[in-house]
């Protein structure tokens, strides 16, 4: 897939339209000029979410009511799709080719892999960052998983309400069980789908992981179910049903759900050690890159296509050696969007890139690569 252009209005300080190149796109500018805003605009268009804030309305330009990001994606030579996300107050509306589109269909239009500062949480943060990484990956291979996950989260939320309410009002265990049962019934089926999806994805990641691109250590992945050691994981539905039954008193005491894949984790190991605990900052960055590259490679083997790759503030995240290796690997594969404040990088690494100079949110200069030609501008 190819992002042909993107247009932003009232999205932070951005205005105007950028026609991207098919290979490397360098967004260069001093700090505070809005280069990362363009990356955020791409991210928001693709995932209907920002990587900077939980509250999308923060990206509406101060004093304005409505922010719009538009873009055109090409799938092959003939299929062009127009995507739009509009932010107004607390609502966001998404459309595909000018028509409103449900989220599951919309999200499968552009797949991105993003290397940003907060993605480092995957290799050194709490389990939720790793679960999100896996869920994005599973969804990239099977779009219906988005709905499974939404249903799962909804069921957990509903069940938590019952548990909290029962705890507060001292409703009996028997009565609580009665109220919880219809939700647990769904939870069992949905949890099994989430578990299966994530396990399969980790297995596939392990198969394509280029273990030693950035170092001598061997990186491996291991999906860690919170039900591990509690019984036969091969009969997941039977096991979780039993755990839900046994642990209801504990859940009632806690006032929230204790059983299910929302408590699972992904172990990232180097030479058998936990990366999160024992890895150096450099090793952790390398591991994150390996994970991203594996996700890209899996996506490619599944769809015969590449996702977009976003790298925010490349110098902050990676040293020159890693940047070199990374670009070597990506060349001829992904359409890549990179922000940098260092002008030395623009010349040294990116002779084959389209360069966009950003000042106050607007492109003030472009340079096209000598080797790769830019996309045709309609």
């Amino acid at each position: 897939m190819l992002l042909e252009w993107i247009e932003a209005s009232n999205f932070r300080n951005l205005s105007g339209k950028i026609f991207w190149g098919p290979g490397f796109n360098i967004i260069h500018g001093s700090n505070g000029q809005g280069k990362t805003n363009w990356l955020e605009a791409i991210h928001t268009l693709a995932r209907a979410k920002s990587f900077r804030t939980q509250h999308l309305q923060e990206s509406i330009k101060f004093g304005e009511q409505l922010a719009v990001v538009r873009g055109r994606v090409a799938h092959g030579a003939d299929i062009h799709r127009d995507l739009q996300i509009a932010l107004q107050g607390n609502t966001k509306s998404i459309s595909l080719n000018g028509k409103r589109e449900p989220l599951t269909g919309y999200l499968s239009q552009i797949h991105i892999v993003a290397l940003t500062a907060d993605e480092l949480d995957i290799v050194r943060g709490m389990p939720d960052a790793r679960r999100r990484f896996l869920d994005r990956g599973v969804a990239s291979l099977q779009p219906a998983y988005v709905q499974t996950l939404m249903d799962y989260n909804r069921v957990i939320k509903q069940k938590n309400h019952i548990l909290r309410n029962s705890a507060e009002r001292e409703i009996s265990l028997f009565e609580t069980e009665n109220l919880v049962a219809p939700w647990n019934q769904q939870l069992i089926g949905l949890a099994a789908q989430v578990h299966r999806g994530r396990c399969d994805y980790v297995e596939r990641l392990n198969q394509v992981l280029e273990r030693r691109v950035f170092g001598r250590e061997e990186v491996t992945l291991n999906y860690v179910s919170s039900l591990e050691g509690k019984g036969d994981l091969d009969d997941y539905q039977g096991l979780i049903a039993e755990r839900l039954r046994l642990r209801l008193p504990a859940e009632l005491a806690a006032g929230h759900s204790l059983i299910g894949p929302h408590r699972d984790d992904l172990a990232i190991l180097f030479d058998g050690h936990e990366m999160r605990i024992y890895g150096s900052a450099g090793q952790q960055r390398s591991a994150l890159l390996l994970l991203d590259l594996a996700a890209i490679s899996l996506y490619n083997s599944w769809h015969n296509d590449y996702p977009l790759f976003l790298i925010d503030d490349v110098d902050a995240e990676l040293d020159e050696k890693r940047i070199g290796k990374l670009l070597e690997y990506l060349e001829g594969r992904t359409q890549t969007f990179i922000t940098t404040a260092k002008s030395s990088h623009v010349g040294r690494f990116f002779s084959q890139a389209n360069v966009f100079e950003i000042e106050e949110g607007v492109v003030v200069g472009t340079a096209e690569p000598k080797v790769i030609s830019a996309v045709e501008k309609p």
Partner: protein
Amino acid sequence: MLEYAEPVTKLIDEFKRLPSIGQKSAQRLAFHIMRMPEAEVERLVLAMREVKQRIILCSVCNNHTELDPCRFCSSPTRDHGVICVVEEPHSLVAVEKTRSFKGVYHVLHGSLSPIRHIGPSDLHLANLLPRLKPENNEGVQVTEIILATNPTTEGEATANYIGRLLKPLGLRVTRIAMGMPVGSDLEYVDEVTMDKSLANRHEI
């Protein structure tokens, strides 16, 4: 200070209480009403008053009706041995449009949703169990309950809850199937529906 004269503001506020009506739509409606001939406004007011005065809930099935029991519950040609449970009166209309269902209905007026503080006692469930006794059902023994709640997590939970309630009574409890819309090309069916259809496949 009010932006509009008091009666206008009052009307706009009333419209805003209605579902899916925001400030802008409320203003548009209010201004439209001010431009309407008085006779038309009277007609609208009368229609609203009438619907409140004349429409009640059927004491048997909770459907909207003018006469109690409703036309389904009092019909001698419907099969009173099969009850289709739906969330809302408009879901009943959807089932009825098929013209292939000959049984009777039970309208819950909602679905279980703890986060919206809707529990079993908030659904119109209390009058379902008595219907299962032949003496309360014109002498007819109910043989099947079809659970036609929505294919959402809330609809599923509701179906599941009622299923648990009824199963021990030994009657047949079924859940409507979910899947492919008829007459659609496989290519254009969304992934979620396709996924459900695959999961719910059956032998032929």
